[in-house]
Structure formats: C-alpha cells, structure tokens
C-alpha cells in the first residue's frame, strides 16, 4: 500500500509530495526526508555504473516487496511533467492533473 508518494529534486527538496491519510502528512514528510539518507547512499554507491546502465531504479530502501513497476510508472509520469514546456525545471509539481491522477491510482491500486 502506497501511503505517500514524493518526487524529490536533485537538490533534495520535494517537487511533489502527497500522502494518504492526509492527517499524518507531517510524519510522512519527515519519513521521506530521512529516507533521502539512504537514497544518497545508494546513488553514491552505484556511482558511475548507474549512469552507464541507464538503470534509474535504485532498488528498495528496505528489503520488503519489490515495487519496480510502480516506480517505473511514477518515473514515466514525472518525465511527462518535465516535458511540459510550461513547466520550469525545479518548480514544485502543483498543476499537473495527469500526474496527480496517476499518483492517486497508485495509492488506490496498491492498497
């Protein structure tokens, strides 16, 4: 069950973050933020090999279930947002309905 989905800029600020249920939003913000520690580690561990492989999936932060497909879907949707000529790279993702719907579907589907 996906309870919180976030897209993080490479400077580590959230481009998009949404969680369900919404009343625990702050907790998820903290959680996503601290999880960046592991993301950082993974990125630096994969290093150059990652760039060459074009494999953007870092794997799991913790070995539970594998959500590769889900992340690929999220990344594809993010790419579409980036391709929007009216979107400034680095802005928070606020006005993309398609991206929002995709996140919603992901949260429901996995539940």
């Amino acid at each position, binding site marked *: 069950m996906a309870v919180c989905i976030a897209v993080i800029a490479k400077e580590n600020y959230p481009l998009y973050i949404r969680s369900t249920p919404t009343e625990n939003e702050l907790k998820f913000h903290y959680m996503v933020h*601290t999880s960046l*520690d592991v993301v950082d580690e993974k990125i630096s561990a994969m290093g150059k090999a990652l760039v060459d492989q074009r494999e953007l999936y870092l*794997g799991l932060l913790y070995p*539970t279930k594998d959500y590769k497909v889900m992340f690929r879907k999220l990344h594809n949707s993010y790419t579409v947002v980036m391709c929007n000529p009216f979107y400034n790279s680095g802005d928070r993702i606020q006005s993309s309905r398609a991206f929002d719907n995709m996140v919603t579907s992901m949260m429901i589907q996995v539940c």
Partner: protein
Amino acid sequence: MEWRRSYGRAPKMIHLESNFVQFKEELLPKEGNKALLTFPFLHIYWTECCDTEVYKATVKDDLTKWQNVLKAHSSVDWLIVIVENDAKKKNKTNILPRTSIVDKIRNDFCNKQSDRRSLPLFSRCCSSLRMPWCSTTSWTPSSLSMWSTSGPGVSVPPGALDCWVFLSCLEVLQRIEGCCDRAQIDSNIAHTVGLWSYATEKLKSLGYLCGLVSEKGPNSEDLNRTVDLLAGLGAERPETANTAQSPYKKLKEALSSVEAFEKHYLDLSHATIEMYTSIGRIRSAKFVGKDLAEFYMRKKAPQKAEIYLQGALKNYLAEGWALPITHTRKQLAECQKHLGQIENYLQTSSLLASDHHLTEEERKHFCQEILDFASQPLDNPGHKIVLPMQSFAQLRDLHFDPSNAVVHVGGVLCIEITMYSQMPVPVHVEQIVVNVHFSIEKNSYRKTAEWLTKHKTSNGIISFPPETAPFPVSQNSLPALELYEMFERSPSDNSLNTTGIICRNVHMLLRRQESSSSLEMPSGVALEEGAHLLRCSHVTLEPGANQITFRTQAKEPGTYTLRQLCASVGSVWFVLPHIYPIVQYDVYSQEPQLHVEPLADSLLAGIPQKVKFTVTTGHYTIKNGDSLQLSNAEAMLILCQAESRAMVYSNTREQSSDAALRIQSSDKVTSISLPVAPAYHVIEFELEVLSLPSAPALGGESDMLGMAEPHRKHKDKQKTGHCMVTTDHKVSIDCPWSIYSTVIALTFSVPFRTTHALLSSGTRKYVQVCVQNLSELDFQLSDSYLVDTSDSTDLQLVPLNTQSQQPIYSKQSVFFVWELKWTEEPPPSLYCRFSVGFSPASEEQLSISLKPYTYEFKVENFFTLYNVKAEIFPPSGMEYCRTGSLCSLEVLITRLSDLLEVDKDEALTESDEHFSTKLMYEVVDNSSNWAVCGKSCGVISMPVAARATHRVHMEVMPLFAGYLPLPDVRLFKYLPHHSAHSSQLDADSWIENDSLSVDKHGDDQPDSSSLKSRGSVHSACSSEHKGLPMPRLQALPAGQVFNSSSGTQVLVIPSQDDHVLEVSVT
C-alpha cells in the same frame, strides 16, 4: 553468497549460515510437515572418483539410488561435487571431449533436470560465507514493524509489542557484537544503525507510555502500566540470565525509574546520532536529534533542546522542506520562549505568523506574541529589537513622483511604496523609515537639468523581486542571469564610447551560499544611522498590499540612495537591510540661464525673423519688474508686437502659466519685462528681429561680369554661387540675475546674390542686373530702380522692365535690364545703384515696411570704340563654300569714335596731328570648324578717328559641312615694351603655334575678356627670342569692341570627293 534472481533483477550477495549434516533418509521432511523456522536442505553428494571404470561400476549406481530417495521426498535441491586432484588431472589428460567424469555425471543426471538454472550457483557459496552483514539488512525496522503490527493475532497490552521489538533489536545487535570484532562492526554501521534507531524509538515510546518523560514523574496509572509490562516480559532466558548486561536487564532497568530511563534513552539516542552522523546519514541523525529535543523540552531543559532543533531546522531550510520547517520552527519558538531569547523568539514568531502552513489561529497567536511584546514598556526605553523585515512585510514596488526621480533644490519629491504585509491581522506601525544615503556626484554634468530630464525617462516604477523564503540554495535555484545591453555614450556628442553586456543581479549569483542559512539569526541585521531619513508615521498595515507615501523636500543637490527600510512596532524594528535593486533620486541646483536661438535653421536678412528666447530660471525667482535689457545692435531691429506672450513651464515641461510680454524700446535699449516665475521654471517667448540689409556689404561680393578682370577664377565664382552671404549681429543682454551682460550673436543670411553685366548692340549700351534667390523662400520683388550715383545729368537709364511686381522663387533668378543713353561724350566709368523692394511671397501684410535690397556696382569703358565685322566668301566662281576648299575671310575693323580719354595710353602715337594706335587681331576657331591658313593674327596700326577702317584678308578652309559659325576675331591693344611695366602676360603665353591650333582649353565664354586660354596668341614678333624685352598685349574691354558678325553662320556644302583630313592634336 551471490543470489542470482529471476526476472532480470540484480544479483545480490547474501549471507547463509549452513550446517553440514550427514545424509539420512529419516531426516528428510515429510510431505505437509513444513514448519516456519525449518532450515532448508541442500543435498550435496561428494565424490573423489576420477576413473571412468570406477564410476561406471559403483558411483553411478550410488548416485542413482540417492537421487531416487530425494525424488521420493520431492526434494529438488541437490548438488553433486566432484573433487579433482590436480596431479592426477595433469597426468591423465583427457583428449576426447565430453568423456570426463564431470561430463558423464552431467550426462547421466543433469539432462533430466534441464529446468534447473541455479545449479552452478552454489559452487560459489564458500567464497561468500564471509559476508555476515548482509543478513542484518533483513532485520530492519520495516520488517520488524510488520511483525509488530501484523504478527501474532492476539491482543496485547499497550507497549508490549514495543518491549518485544526493543528486545529483538538489542538481541540481534548483541549477537552481531558477539561474533564480530570492533573494526567489523564499525565498518558496517550502515547495516546496524537502523536497529539502534528503532530500539531508541521504541524505548522513547515506552518512556512516554509509562510516564517516565513527564516533568512530575509517573503517576499511579503509569506505574500500573509499567508493572503490567514488566510482568509480561516473563523471566529472562536462561542463556543470558547470568550475564551482567543483557537487553532484558536493560529494558527492565530503563522502565524502573525516571533517572534510569533518561540514562538509557540518552545513551541510545546519542549512540544512534553518532552512528548516523558517522556514516553521513545527516537527515536521520537530525531526526533522532529532534526526538531528543522533544524529550529535553518535556524535561524542561530547553537549553539542551535548542541545538538539536536549530540543527534540524537548518537542514530542512537548506533542503526546502516546508512542513518540517514549520513544525520545527514551532518547537523552536517554544524552546526560545522558555529560554527567554526575546529577539530569537520574536523573529521565529514573525516567521511563523507569516507561515501559510499554519492555521489562521496559530498565525494570529504568533502575531499577537509580537504585538504583545511590542506594547510592553521596556526597562531600557531606548532599546530596540531589530528583526529582519522579510517575514513581517515585503517591499514589492516603489514609485517616484516626479517619475524621473529628479527634483530641483526646494522641490517636493514623493515616493510611494507598496508593502505586502505577511501578518494575519492589521498591524499598527508607529513609523516607517527609509534610510537614505547622500552623495555629491563629482560629475557635475549629470546634475544639469537637461541631462537629468533627458536620461531618466522610465515610468518611475521599480519592482522588487519577491523572495521565496523556504527554498534550498543550490545551483539550480539561483535566479536567472539578468543580462542587459549596455551603451555608454559620450556626453558631448552622444557618440558611442563603449558597449557590452552587464549582469544586473551579479550580487545574487555570486553571494556566498552560507549566507542564506542565517535566516533564523536576526543578529545579521544592523540598523544604519544616517542623517537623511524619509519618514511616514502611524500607518496601519493591513494583511496584503499597502500603499505608503513618503514626501520630502529636496535640500542639498546630489544623489540620494535608498538604503534601508524600517518599520517600528513599539520597541520592535523590522528592518530591510538592503534595498535592491538600487533606488536613487537626484536633487539638482541650476544657475539661471538665457538662451536665444532662431526658430528656423538660419535667419534671413531683410525680412522679420522669429527668435526664441528661453529663460531657465534655475534657483532664481523672477520677480515683478525683472526685465531683460537688450542693447540694440546696429542694423538689427527688434520688432515689438502687441500680442507677444510668454509661456512659463515647470522644469518637467508642464505648462504653468502664460503672460503678455511688455516690450519697451528706446533708441539704444529694448527692455523686455519678464513674467513672474518661480525658481526652476522655464520662460519661453518669441521675438521678431529684422536685420537691415547693408549696401556695402552686399556690393562687394557681386560678380563684375562686365568688367575687365583677367585673373578672376572660375572656382571663386562657383563657390560664391551656392552659399549666402552672412552678417553677424551681436546683442548684449543684461539679465536680472547677473551683473554681467550676456552677448548673443545672431547670424543672418542675405537671401539674394546679384550680378550685373554690360551688354552692347553696336554703340547702344545696356546694363543687365541678375538677382538670384538663394534661400528656400519665395519672394515678391517690386519697384526696381537703377540710379547713377555720380549724378551725371547727361546720362539716362531707361528701364526695359515691364512688370513692377515680380515673384522670385526659391533657387531661381530674375533679370532686370536698363538702356544707357547719353547725348554728349559719356564718362569713362559709371557708378550705379540697383535697388529692389522685396517681401516674403507667402506672408500676409507685414506690420512694417521693409527696406529695399540694394546693390552697387561700377561699369567702366563701356563706350564702343571698334566694330569688328567678319565675312566668309566662297572661292571665286562658286556659289557655296565647300569642305576642303579654301575660302576667303574678310575682317573689317572700324573705328567708331574720335580720340577719347580712354585712348590715351602707351599705344597711342601722334604724327601730324593724326593719332593712331596699335591693335593686334587674332582669328581663333575654338570649335575647330575652320582651318586658318597662313597667319591667323597680325598687328595693325589703327588711326584714332571715326570711320577709320582696316581690312584684313585671310584664307580659311571649312572642315565640316553645314551651317558653320564664323571663327572668332579678337582684338588686343598692342603696347610697346616698357620696362617699367610688368607684362600682364607671362612668357608662357607666347607659344609659337601653327595656325591650325585646336584650343583644348577653350573658353566657354565667347566674349570672354580672359587671355588665359593657351595657345591662342600668335606673336607677330615670333622671330624674337624669349627672354628679350617683348611688347605686351592688353585685351580690349568687352564694352569697347562690338562684334557685329557674331552669331552669323556660313553654309558649307560637302565636297564632291570625300577625303579624310587628319588633324593631329598636340
């Protein structure tokens, strides 16, 4: 061990603990008997067999039996290991492929098992047995939390699961510590720190549950809960019961007292933070630190909490996480309040009051905190709490009035700013102050009114970019480059000096990154003390945009830069330390000035012309009675018009008034009373001036066409033909603001150019005057007169001009002709004055009568002395001249008068009462129609008596057929050599020439008096050597010789037989 996974996932290194147990059929698990914690089996068959025969005999059978047993128990994981002896292998090399034991086994057993893909995998297991750390990754909080929430489906008392998880974590950690050395543990913190963190978290929640974190300690309910939990733990397991330290003992101790809990919790927290920090997981470390801060706050130790909160907040700010920022700030505010850090607390409060992530109520609360503090009377009345303005209100834009931000000394400048209040409620501000820096610019040119009004033409609105507060500082979030083209022009002629591209926001791009992290620190703001302040008192800032207007009266000239913006609420001062982009206004002072300039490109003499007077008052105030005193220039009139008015403008060109101009003229002085005007205004008015045409100045320039001026050059003529003659008039003006006179020079151009010519018809004489209009205007000419200034009664000038009114258009000419008549002997020279009235053709009736245009000239030697007549006759017996055949040219020179004054010169000789003079004739054909055969010139002695004639006969040959003009016959006075006289002709003119000369420098004036044309003179004394004394030639003035045959033509018919005549031209 490497775990190759299906579906394209990356292989993983995992740790597997294994036991080697001898194969027994009883040990194999039965169908359906699968326990949760059963270890899987991998069946391995080891053999040292290396001989094919032995294999076939025994090993193969044994293997088959083993396989069948496995199959019967549906066990599919097996491995056959063949141990090969290297020595043996060497000795007995298998030449044939696929005949080794391995191949045979593979053939016999593996083919049937083709679905197994991971067969070679396990042969590497030994190498990876050294990686115990991989397994601990599975003991991470998430898996544990799954157990704790979805594990055993029984109801447990609150905290029991926490206890169980805490114990599990610590036991795992203890086991790891038990089997590894320190260095190994240290190098694998990344794998264990999660457990430490999880254990810390669980202990914390247990502490909160059991009332161990509250200030007063646990109450009875808390104690009951603790007892239940401890009871639920049961007895310690026997294997650890005897050790001094065990997770069980630790938990029991921690829950037993407030102090013990604190010690254990702090130990765990610090250890976790340290571990996180050591492996670079800063965010996690900060997060644990925040929990710790919460704990300290509960324990009423805000001084210890602060550092953790600040640390976490700094991290969130740097990475731009809005919700954690707001949350941590709230905690920090509470902490700062407890610590009594007033400034910090107010600063945090202002940030929270403007934070949209908080509820309206919360925002109002924090805003009220500030207002409450601000309204408190302070112990130290002069003390100010200085806070950054950013969170309180933002400066959005600024507008100057006048919009060019330039004002004269004493002028009023308005600055309107838009402040966007971030507060949730209206805030009363005692005063808003702009701190202004004053500088006197060295470049005084910049301070002139012209420059300032010309160069600042913006709309006067300066916008300030809104700063996005919670945004991380990184390369990407830097503002875009603001690049602008830059042109620097020379102030004098506006020519381009330099050009380039400048970056306007370089200070934003190049500032140090750390500077933004001091957002929480109000200490960076310093209040500037300056002498120049703009102040606006008692303003209520409503939430959102507010307009605030500052008014100031400009005092000292210079440049004023707006530096700081401060808003005071009681003792709290919100300060915007730097106003950017730079905002400046200029104050200038100016000396009074008078400019006089023509309205048109150039002023024309003789007609009324408008001149614009501009009085720039500068710092001088024009009082009633102030006037300009113009000392009248000679020959320039200032025309007083009743209706002239003066306009008064402000320096920004807004018209303020107009007034009638009073002009009083006396003989010497014209006085213009100026209208009353305040300082820094402009008075403009127009006056008409008239430059009187002055006769001598004009006459001298005219071209004396009829006069003998042999050396006049063509170039000069052309030069004067295009530009107008000018006259300068200087006017000295006394201005009321100065004891010195201003001298103004006005240049007037004469619109006309006049030439005259003497025309003859036999002995009748005419004077022609040509008036050329050089100006762009059309004129009406009237009343032309030509008078003889010497007043000889004998002479009469009879006008042949029919019209009294004559228009003369721009760039065109008008000719006037008079006939000269006399009864007695005429004077040798005649002085004439031509005058013609003129007025601009387009204009209506002028108020004044204009002076006529005059032109004076002299005509000399105008009386005709000789008549020259030439005739060409066809050869005898022929009716017409033919080309190529010789014709006779008869020249008849007739003296028309008796001895006159003009004849009395060196050439005159007297014998027996008879006078004679020497003349030289010359026949020249410039058009090369004729070839003069034989001598083309000769000297004759001419009796000075009326009707004396001389006949010359010559032979000429026509070169072309058609009506040919006759060749020119020229007459010169032949003066004997006289040493006292310098020859008018230089030696070069005496060039021997054959008579067939073709004059290439042909003079285009048939009646030219010029002797400059080369090669036109053939000397009668050609035998004389050069350098010897030679006679001189003097051209007869045009008026003295009349060529009666000029213009006549002779018909030449072509000869029968065409032949080519070669003409060589040298």
